[in-house]
């Protein structure tokens, strides 16, 4: 046997050979997988990021007590008869704190170094005449609180005098005050004041020194109120002006807390724990609320109270902040979910198309390998290894990039997304190849195009359409879901796009074939050839069309959300104000105010309405507002604002009987109907009046959130002439117009009626316009997802063009040999693909129109349109609305782009020589 003549064994390393064979394709594939994995991992991280940022911003805007969890224990000789002093020692305080800390578990995170605990006195007043009161003849004396917090010396800087000693008897104690307290309360080192409790026992407090805070911003100084300086508190006084008084604090030594027990209510031991803002995460908010509830009133609280009775835990603001945040987050989730599902669908389509293109290009190789005797499993295994070598490192790199660039707490979702991308990219080519090369087949012509698709494909498509249609129907019948993220709702655009794509692809050849037949009579060949080719069953699958449809749908969904939010805000503003401007007061407005308001620039018409709230139907519980209007102008107001259907002004003045005609809201009308003959008596400001219901209105400008009854001014004056007097004149003026000058209006109103309230629709509308961090973050993520989806769908179009490129090039080269000019060939290329592109644009519009009624019930825009802080009347207007620009612009852009790409490709192929395209003996 000859010695080995060959340096290398020749046993091919499959992967190395493949990678070396097509470096460009491999790089492109790796880039695609990298970008896709990056986007897939970045989306959940970005959402987490802005949600966390929004939450932390919301919580940090609250004051320190507003975001703390406070434990408190009331200790007095009455409540703890046996050894109450032991509970107030600093050791006991520390132990209780340690027990509390054992109950603090994630997700609740409290800042340990910002914990403040101490003891303070409860509710004492300082009656010394020397202490200031504002105003000086005020009723209420200042209130003083004695506070003992550990580490007094470490946190204060002595300005004057000395720190207090712990000794003292039951009636007197030494204390220090801050410099600002001393200035306001007019106290000095060495002076003394007396604190008196509710039963009259007096405690003398001797001020031994003045201190200044070492670091005023730390929690030590800010946990308890008014430690650094006194505060003027106003006590509300019903029926009069509020009463102010000063509240100040004096610091005593923490070993002197026993003296506080001499007061009647004793002392209050407190432990303030501010929440750790940086540890807050948005997705933990429900668990956090549960934890807080458990601490304040649940099993953890019970465990604490088992240790020490009367130990209470409360938090004054954290759950009030978290509740609206959670609602807003839940409301914003469908948006993000729709964008995420849409983008991932388009990305998957592109990955599958890339695999399909690769499989189609390498079809001969697979058939050859199968014919040479490779088993299907071995072929799949080799392709799997080939794919994994490219896809897995790229996906890992994309994931690492996303994790690095977008910091957030959880990485699980991002890792899973990137892993899914890697799996799809790896597995799609082997599966496609296995489907192609399952049964070894001899060579066929590749440019054969069937008139209609195979029966198997028809059955598969029908099954898919039936499944998806069933899902869509189920979604529609579900009605209002339980809110929040719902995968079926979010997948609805994709499902609709699937159905639309399959149906359109089946239907479009027929009209095209009709057109082709009619164009056959024309002289030129281009139109007929192009349409004839386009009228055959499409050789590509529905995938590129699906990608285009999904991205168009997601884009228009965003547009419809925005349109819904805008229209919801408009509707709420109009409902809240009732017209473009409203001037209202209790009682009656001056008569000349109406003409003055009419003179304000921008005002077109003014009408006055007298609103008598709180009327009641006799012997029925319904309360309503009685509206006395001028029928004709009021009818015009109703028409302009759109609140209510066509107002029958004529009916209100008709009739001369004792019972005046009235228009009521439906509930009032029903209540009246239960009596005899629709007649009822109503108590108005001038006595009892008989009314007769002549019509109903669902809503009316003058009474947005109550039931109402509308009568005509003249009719009322007919039966009760006293109403003509100015004291019974209109209480509210409604002005319509565009561009009302707010300043002039306010000036006119304040001159004539200083106490009247002026509201403008434009100002009300603008007040809804503030977007929170959560909403702007959602918007950013949505825009990025839409842009990514658009990019992917363009890539899908390019891939589908690439799919047919060899056949098209061969066809164009053959036509050139037959004498077709370059321009004609360009037109032919465009015409061949134009129906599919137009189909994409048209189908996108269809699906976008169809998805609005489908998703309207599942997507609640109220929390997005209005901040949850104030309740808003008329918020029902915030639903999805079709937005024509966002429907039409992307479709038009798609058509233009596709035509441009096709024309470029046709021009490029026209230059190459035919020798390379057409070879003798080639069968295709």
């Amino acid at each position, binding site marked *: *046997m*000859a010695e*080995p*003549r*060959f340096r*290398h*064994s*020749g*046993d*091919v390393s499959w992967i190395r*050979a*493949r990678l*070396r*064979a*097509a470096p460009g394709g491999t790089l492109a594939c790796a880039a695609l997988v990298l970008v896709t994995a990056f986007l897939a991992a970045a989306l959940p991280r970005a959402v987490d990021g802005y949600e966390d940022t929004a939450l932390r911003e919301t919580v940090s805007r609250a004051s320190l007590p507003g975001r703390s969890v406070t434990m408190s224990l009331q200790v007095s000789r009455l409540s703890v008869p046996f050894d109450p002093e032991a509970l107030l020692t600093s050791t006991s305080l520390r132990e209780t704190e340690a027990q509390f800390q054992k109950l603090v578990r994630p997700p609740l995170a409290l800042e340990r170094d910002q914990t403040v605990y101490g003891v303070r006195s409860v509710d004492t007043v300082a009656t010394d005449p020397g202490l200031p009161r504002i105003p000086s003849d005020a009723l209420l004396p200042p209130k003083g609180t004695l506070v003992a917090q550990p580490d007094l010396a470490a946190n204060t800087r002595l300005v004057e005098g000395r720190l207090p000693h712990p000794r003292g008897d039951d009636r007197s104690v030494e204390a220090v005050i801050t410099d600002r307290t001393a200035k306001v309360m007019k106290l000095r080192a060495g002076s003394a004041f007396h604190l008196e409790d509710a039963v009259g026992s007096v405690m003398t407090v001797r001020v031994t020194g003045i201190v200044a805070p070492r670091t005023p911003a730390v929690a030590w100084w800010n946990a308890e109120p008014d430690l650094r300086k006194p505060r003027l508190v106003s006590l509300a006084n019903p029926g009069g002006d509020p009463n102010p008084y000063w509240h100040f604090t004096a610091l005593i030594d923490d070993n002197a807390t026993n003296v506080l027990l001499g007061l009647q209510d004793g002392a209050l031991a407190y432990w303030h724990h501010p929440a750790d803002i940086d540890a807050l995460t948005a997705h933990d908010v429900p668990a956090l609320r549960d934890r807080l509830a458990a601490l304040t009133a649940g099993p953890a609280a019970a465990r604490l109270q088992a240790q020490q009775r009367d130990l209470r835990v409360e938090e004054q603001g954290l759950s009030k902040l978290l509740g609206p945040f959670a609602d807003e987050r839940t409301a914003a989730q469908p948006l993000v979910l729709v964008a995420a599902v849409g983008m991932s669908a388009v990305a998957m389509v592109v990955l599958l198309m890339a695999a399909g293109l690769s499989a189609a290009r390498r079809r*001969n*190789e697979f058939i*050859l*390998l199968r*014919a*040479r*005797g*490779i*088993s*299907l499993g*071995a072929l799949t295994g080799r392709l799997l290894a080939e794919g994994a070598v490219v896809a897995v490192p790229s996906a890992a790199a994309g994931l690492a990039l996303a994790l690095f660039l977008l910091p957030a707490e959880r990485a699980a979702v991002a890792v899973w997304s990137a892993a899914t991308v890697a799996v799809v990219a790896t597995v799609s080519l082997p599966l496609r190849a296995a489907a192609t090369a399952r049964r*070894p*087949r*001899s*060579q066929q012509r590749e440019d054969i195009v*069937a*008139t209609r698709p195979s029966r198997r494909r028809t059955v598969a498509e029908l099954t898919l359409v039936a499944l998806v249609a069933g899902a869509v129907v189920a979604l529609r019948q579900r009605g209002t879901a339980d809110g929040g993220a719902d995968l079926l709702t979010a997948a609805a655009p994709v499902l609709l796009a699937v159905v639309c794509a399959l149906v359109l692809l089946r239907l479009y050849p027929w009209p095209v074939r009709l057109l082709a037949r009619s164009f056959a009579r024309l002289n030129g060949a281009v139109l007929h050839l192009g349409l004839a080719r386009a009228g055959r069953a499409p050789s590509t699958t529905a995938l590129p069309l699906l990608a285009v449809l999904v991205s168009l749908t997601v884009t228009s969904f965003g547009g419809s959300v925005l349109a819904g939010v805008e229209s919801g805000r408009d509707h709420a503003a109009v409902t809240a104000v009732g017209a473009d401007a409203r001037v209202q007061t209790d009682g009656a407005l001056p008569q000349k105010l109406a003409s003055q308001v009419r003179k304000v620039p921008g005002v077109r018409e003014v009408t006055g309405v007298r609103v008598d709230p709180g009327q009641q139907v006799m012997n029925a519980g319904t309360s309503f507002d009685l509206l006395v209007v001028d029928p004709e102008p009021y009818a015009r107001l109703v028409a302009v604002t759109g609140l209510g259907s066509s107002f029958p002004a004529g009916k209100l003045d008709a009739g001369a009987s004792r019972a005046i005609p009235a228009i009521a809201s439906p509930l009032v009308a029903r209540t009246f109907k239960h009596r005899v003959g629709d007649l009822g008596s109503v108590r108005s400001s001038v006595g009892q009046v008989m009314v007769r219901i002549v019509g109903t209105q669902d809503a009316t400008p003058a009474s947005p959130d109550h039931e109402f009854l509308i009568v005509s001014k003249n009719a009322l004056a007919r039966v009760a002439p006293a109403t003509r007097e100015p004291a019974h004149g209109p209480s509210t003026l409604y002005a319509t117009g565009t561009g009302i000058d707010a300043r002039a209006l306010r000036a006119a109103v304040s001159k004539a009626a200083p106490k009247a309230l002026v509201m403008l629709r434009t100002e009300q509308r603008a007040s809804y316009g503030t977007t929170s961090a959560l909403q702007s973050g959602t918007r950013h993520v949505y825009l990025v997802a839409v842009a990514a989806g658009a990019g992917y769908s363009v890539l899908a179009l390019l891939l589908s063009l690439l799919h047919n490129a060899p056949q098209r090039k061969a066809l164009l080269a053959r036509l050139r040999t037959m004498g077709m000019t370059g321009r004609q060939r360009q037109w032919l290329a465009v015409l061949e693909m134009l129906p599919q592109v137009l189909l994409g644009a048209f189908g996108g519009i269809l699906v976008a129109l169809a998805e609005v009624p489908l998703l309207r019930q599942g997507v609640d825009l109220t929390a997005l349109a209005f901040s949850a802080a104030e309740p808003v009347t008329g918020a029902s207007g915030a639903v999805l609305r079709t937005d024509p620009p966002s429907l039409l612009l992307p479709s038009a852009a798609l058509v233009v782009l596709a035509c441009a790409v096709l024309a470029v490709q046709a021009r490029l192929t026209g230059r190459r020589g035919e020798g390379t395209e057409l070879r*003798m*003996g*080639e*069968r295709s």
Partner: protein
Amino acid sequence: MSQDTSGTAERDRVTLAELERRITKGREQPAYGHGALIVCDRLVRIFTAQGVEVQALQGLDLLVQQGELMALVGASGSGKSTLLGILAGLDMPTAGAASVAGFDLLALDSGARLRYQREVVGFVWQQTSRNLLPYLTALQNVVLPMGLAGRVKGRQARADRAGELLDLMGVGYCADRRPQQMSGGEQQRTAIAVALANHPSLVLADEPTGQLDSASAAQVFDAFRTANEQLGTTIVVVTHDQAVASAVDRTVAIRDGRTASEVIRRTSVDDEGRTTVHASEYATVDRSGRLQLPRDFTRALDIRDRVMLELEPDHIALRPDHPEQDGQANR
């Protein structure tokens, strides 16, 4: 009466025993094509596409013995490529029987088909680009089927064997070149080496010299002959090329989906060492005795629907059916 019954009973007994004897005799006789490598018995292949039926093979009979080097010729559309596809295991016949080296081609499951394609048959297509994987060198292309079959163990052993095959084909110097770097003739010879990689019993070639010039075609055919003589492989070549068809020992012409005629060449060496090649053309007779008359014969005698046959001691006479001539002959 009793005599009759006893007579009939005897006749019945004899008839039954006679039947049994005939059956056992039939079973002991060798089946049709016993001992041949390729046995095609009334092979039918019908293609149906969108309601149009095409009968590519209409009951083809073919017997190929081991070690033959034969060519299949015929006009385009006569069914040669279809037959080749069936013999290569890439296509399934509609009816009839075909067996190659004991593998029944109508009853191949996927595992048996795999074994058949790996170990029994090798093929060479016409387009050189479809025979070789473009991203592997010639040596790697030859090693690939060996690796798949797994009979030759050890990477070095496979490489050596591949090298030997390439040398045998005369393209040993192309071992490290990729297909794009080789000429058409070199590619086809490499393709033959790939087909021979697993020592198959049968090598099929579909117009291997169709894209080559006459010099390369001659080289390729020499390669086939070398393989046939030195390795004992049976080679069936489908060709239009007259040079190839006249260089093989046996040429079978296929017409209208059936074998029509055969040309057999015998080489004889006379006493002075001169080699003479005798080529004789025959018409194929299938199992049921059917015969296809060559077109020029039938046209010459205006033979249309019927012929009269007369059995002579050493030949069969065939006369066309012309009634007026018969009448004259009879008179």
